[in-house]
C-alpha cells in the first residue's frame, strides 16, 4: 500500500490553487488534454470501470457501472449532473473540496462529460453555498477563456457547457431523482423508479448523476490509469476517500485517507484525528453521516468477532446492522461520554422529519411520530412502551418509501435503541435526573 497517497488533496494547500494558472501549473487539466486528444469516450468509461471507484455520495455504487447503464438513443441529448447538494449531517467534504480546489471538479466534469457524450452538464450545489457557486462560476470562466470549455474544446470539435445551479434548501434534493425535479424548477419530490435516470432523467433524457468527490477522482484515474487506482485501497474499496470529521476529537476537519486505513490509526494518530479531546473517552461513533447506524465505541473499533475494524465499505459494515454500520458519505461524528444518545437521536429524528418531502405516508407520518416520541422521552415524559413503539415505527418506515430518506430516518433511531437501550430506559425510569442540565447516562463498558 502506498501509504499516505493523496489523489484529491495533494495540491489543496498550494497557494493560489483556486486559480486556473496555479492549478494548471500543478499538473491540472492534463486529463482533459489526454481524453480529448488521445482517447475515445468508450476508453474513458473503461478506465473508470477498471478503477473500481464507487459513488462517494453515500450509496457506494460502482461509478463505471453506473456510466455504462446510460442509454444512448440517436438524436437525444444526454446529461451529466453533479450532485453537490451535500446536506447529510456530519458531511462537509464536498463543500471543502469545491471551495478549496474548484478546478479539480471542473476538470472532472469535462472528463466525465466527454466520456458520456454530454454537451451540457450541470453542477447542482445546495443554495446555502452561494459563495461556493461564485467560486465555481469563476473557475468555469477561467477554463473557458483557456479553451478547455465551450465550443470546440482544444480544437477537437467537442463542445461542452457547464451550468452551476443553486438549490433552495432541501436535504431531499441530494436524492438523485429529487435533484433532477429541482433542476427542472419543481418541488424536490423523488420520482418513482423505474425508469431510472440513465434512461429517463433530466428533461426525460438519459442522465448520469454523480457526487462531487466521485467526479473529482476521474482526472487522476485518467492520468494514472484505472489499474493504478484499483491498486490503492483494499478489496472492493478501491482508492481513497474523503472523510469529514466532527465531534469530540482533537482535530476536526476533512481528511483524505486510503481506504483500508485501520480505524484505530485514523482515530488516534496525530496525522489524522489526534484522538478524543483531553480527559474524555469515546462513547459512540456515527461513521458515515447521520443516517448510518450509530455504534458504541467498542463495537466501532473492533468487530463483534474481535477483529480490528478498517475504514472501508466492507469492514465498517461487518456484522450487518446487528453490530456494524456503513461508510456512507464519510461523515464521521465522534461522541464522548458527555453526549446524551437520546438527545442526539431526537435531534436527528427532528432533522429527518423536517426534511421529509411528505410524498410517502410512512415517512411523512413516521418521521414526525418518531420525533414526537423521542422528544417525550428526552424531556422526561416517556414510558417503556414508547421505546418499543419507536422500534416498531422505524421498522414500518424502512423499505416502504419511494426514496431512501425513509431508511435514513429509521436507521439512526433503530440503531440507537439497539445499542443504547438502557440509556432510553434510564430516561423513562428516572425522568427527574435525566432532564437535569448536563445529565448523561454512561455505561462504562462501552467507553474506549
Amino acid at each position, binding site marked *: 500500500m502506498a501509504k499516505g497517497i493523496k489523489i484529491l488533496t495533494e495540491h489543496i494547500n498550494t497557494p493560489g490553487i483556486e486559480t486556473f494558472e496555479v492549478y494548471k501549473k500543478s499538473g491540472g487539466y492534463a486529463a482533459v488534454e489526454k481524453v480529448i486528444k488521445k482517447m475515445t469516450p468508450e476508453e474513458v468509461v473503461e478506465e473508470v470501470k477498471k478503477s473500481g471507484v464507487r459513488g462517494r455520495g453515500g450509496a457506494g455504487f460502482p461509478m463505471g457501472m453506473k456510466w455504462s447503464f446510460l442509454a444512448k438513443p440517436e438524436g437525444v441529448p444526454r446529461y451529466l449532473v453533479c450532485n453537490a447538494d*451535500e446536506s447529510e*449531517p456530519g458531511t462537509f467534504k464536498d463543500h471543502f473540496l469545491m471551495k478549496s480546489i474548484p478546478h479539480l471538479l471542473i476538470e472532472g466534469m469535462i472528463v466525465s462529460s466527454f466520456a458520456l457524450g454530454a454537451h451540457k452538464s450541470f453542477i447542482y450545489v445546495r*443554495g*446555502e453555498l452561494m459563495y461556493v457557486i461564485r467560486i465555481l462560476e469563476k473557475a468555469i470562466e477561467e477554463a473557458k477563456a483557456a479553451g478547455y470549455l465551450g465550443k470546440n474544446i482544444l480544437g477537437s470539435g467537442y463542445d461542452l457547457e457547464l451550468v452551476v445551479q443553486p438549490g433552495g434548501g432541501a436535504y431531499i434534493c441530494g436524492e438523485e431523482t429529487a435533484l433532477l425535479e429541482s433542476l427542472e424548477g419543481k418541488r424536490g419530490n423523488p420520482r418513482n423508479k423505474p425508469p431510472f435516470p440513465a434512461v429517463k432523467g433530466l428533461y426525460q433524457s438519459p442522465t448520469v448523476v454523480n457526487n462531487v468527490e466521485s467526479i473529482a477522482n476521474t482526472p487522476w484515474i485518467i492520468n494514472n490509469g484505472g489499474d493504478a487506482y484499483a491498486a490503492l485501497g483494499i478489496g472492493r474499496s478501491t482508492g481513497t476517500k474523503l472523510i469529514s*470529521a*466532527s*465531534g469530540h476529537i482533537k482535530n476536526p476537519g476533512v481528511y483524505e485517507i486510503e481506504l483500508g486505513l485501520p480505524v484505530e490509526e485514523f482515530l488516534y494518530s496525530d496525522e489524522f484525528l489526534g484522538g478524543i479531546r483531553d480527559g474524555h473517552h469515546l462513547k459512540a461513533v456515527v461513521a458515515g453521516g447521520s443516517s448510518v447506524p450509530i455504534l458504541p465505541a467498542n463495537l466501532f473499533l473492533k468487530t463483534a468477532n474481535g477483529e480490528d475494524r478498517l475504514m472501508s465499505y466492507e469492514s465498517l459494515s461487518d456484522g450487518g446492522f446487528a453490530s456494524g454500520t456503513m461508510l456512507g458519505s464519510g461523515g464521521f*461524528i465522534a461522541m464522548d461520554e458527555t453526549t446524551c444518545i437520546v438527545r442526539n437521536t431526537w435531534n436527528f429524528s427532528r432533522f429527518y422529519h423536517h426534511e421529509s418531502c411528505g410524498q410517502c405516508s410512512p415517512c411523512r407520518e413516521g418521521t414526525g411520530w418518531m420525533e414526537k416520541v423521542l422528544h417525550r422521552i428526552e424531556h422526561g415524559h416517556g414510558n417503556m412502551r414508547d421505546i418499543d413503539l419507536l422500534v416498531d415505527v422505524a421498522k414500518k418506515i424502512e423499505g416502504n418509501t419511494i426514496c431512501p430518506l425513509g431508511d435514513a430516518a429509521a436507521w439512526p433511531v433503530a440503531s440507537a435503541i439497539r445499542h443504547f437501550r438502557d440509556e432510553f430506559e434510564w430516561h423513562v425510569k428516572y425522568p427527574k435526573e435525566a432532564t437535569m442540565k448536563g445529565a448523561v447516562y454512561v455505561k462504562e463498558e462501552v467507553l474506549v
Partner: protein
Amino acid sequence: MSDKIAFSEDRLAKAKEIILRYPEGKQKSALLPLLHLAQEQFGWVSAASMDYIAEMLQIEPIEVYEVATFYTMFHLEPVGKHVIEYCRTGPCCTMGGEEVYDHLKTKLKIEANQTTSNGLFTLKEVECLAACGWGPCFQIREKFYMHLTNEKVDGIIEELSK
C-alpha cells in the same frame, strides 16, 4: 392581485442570462436561481415577486408558489436587515452549538422566527449547513460564521449593530 415590482437593471440582465442557460422550452429550470435573485434584491420573496417571476418564465403563478414554499431558504415574510440562520443539527450541537445558541437568543432577546425590535436581526433555525467540523456555525446571507463561541457571537452582533 399584488403590486407590480421589477428587478433592478443589472439583475434583470442577470435573469435573462440565467434563462438562456437551459435548453429551449426548459426555462422553468431558472425558477430557483430567479427566486434567489429576488430575495437578494428585496430581502424576501413576496407574492408580487413570485408573480413577476412567473410572468418572466411564462409559467403559472402556482408553479412558483409551490416551489417557493417547498424550499426552506426563501423568506416568505419580511425579515430584519440581517437574517441569522443558525445550525441546530446534531454535529454542531456536539461541538457546543446548543450553549452558543442559548447565548445568542439571550443576547438578541428574541426566539427563533422573531425579529429584534430595531429591525436589525431575524433569527432562524436551519438544518445542517455542511460545516460540521467547523461548528458551531450560522450563516448570514452568503457568509458562514464558524467555530462560534459566546465571545465570538458577541463580537459579530456588536459589529453588525454599528
